[in-house]
């Protein structure tokens, strides 16, 4: 990347039953920054946001992500307010699925992030379909 300071990228997610869709997201994020920090959302926050619990608990989801050579650092993401995690991590770019682009929640996120000089970078996000498929294969809704 340009300049002398390394660009720190942050990509939050559930990373439940880590699969090829997740890997592709991390690959893409990896290519767009110098240091990749992955946020793993807590079981409580996931239940709050999606009204269903993850298959794999937080500590194990974190361990699987941390085992990957694409990932420099793993942190727990406790809140939908990304300023909270920004204060702890201090990233330059936030990666988000493009299902958030041009939506009220996406606009709000961009506003919030630009207030601390963080760019929001969207890319195609196909992890949901794979996760839904895996849940179905396991007989979990």
């Amino acid at each position, binding site marked *: 990347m340009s300049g002398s300071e390394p660009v720190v990228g942050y990509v939050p997610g559930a990373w439940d039953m880590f*699969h090829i869709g997740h890997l592709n997201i991390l690959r893409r994020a990896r290519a767009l920054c110098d240091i990749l920090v992955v946020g793993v959302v807590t079981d409580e926050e996931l239940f709050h946001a999606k009204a269903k619990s993850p298959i*794999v608990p937080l500590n*194990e989801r974190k*361990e*699987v992500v941390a*085992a990957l*050579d694409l990932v420099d650092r793993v942190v727990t993401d406790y809140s939908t307010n990304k300023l909270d995690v920004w204060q702890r991590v201090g990233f330059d770019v936030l990666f988000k699925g493009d299902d958030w682009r041009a939506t009220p929640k996406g606009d709000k996120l961009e506003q919030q992030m630009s207030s601390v000089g963080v760019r929001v970078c969207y890319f195609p996000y196909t992890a949901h379909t794979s996760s839904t498929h*895996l849940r179905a294969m396991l007989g979990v809704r």
Partner: protein
Amino acid sequence: MRQGYLAGSFDLLNVGDLDVIGQVRERCDRLVVGVYSDGYVRKLSGRLPVVPLNERAELLRHVRGVAEVLTHNESTDWHKLSDYFTVLASQDDRAGDLAEIVAPARQTSSRELQAALAPLAGAALQRGVA
């Protein structure tokens, strides 16, 4: 250089897999993982893996400590492997005396994952693997 070879299914990659990989990796300088083909998983467990071979292999290629990933099936020759590798390990006993069986020291606490992986774990248990 001590080269290690670890054969297994690595379906629904979880902390148990990472544990086994770590155990073998500690005992060699370079670790090669042999991933069971879909057909071989079906032969061992009676059903296909949840995740297809190419995806299981792709994830393993990005696991720290794994230098190379190969496909392992019933025609893989453990005798030939023993010419190249000083550490030979497997998640089941199909290799006979040539490879040691490595059992995970821990397993995922997810009951859903345990249930999905039960056919393979059960196949290993029937053959006396703890």
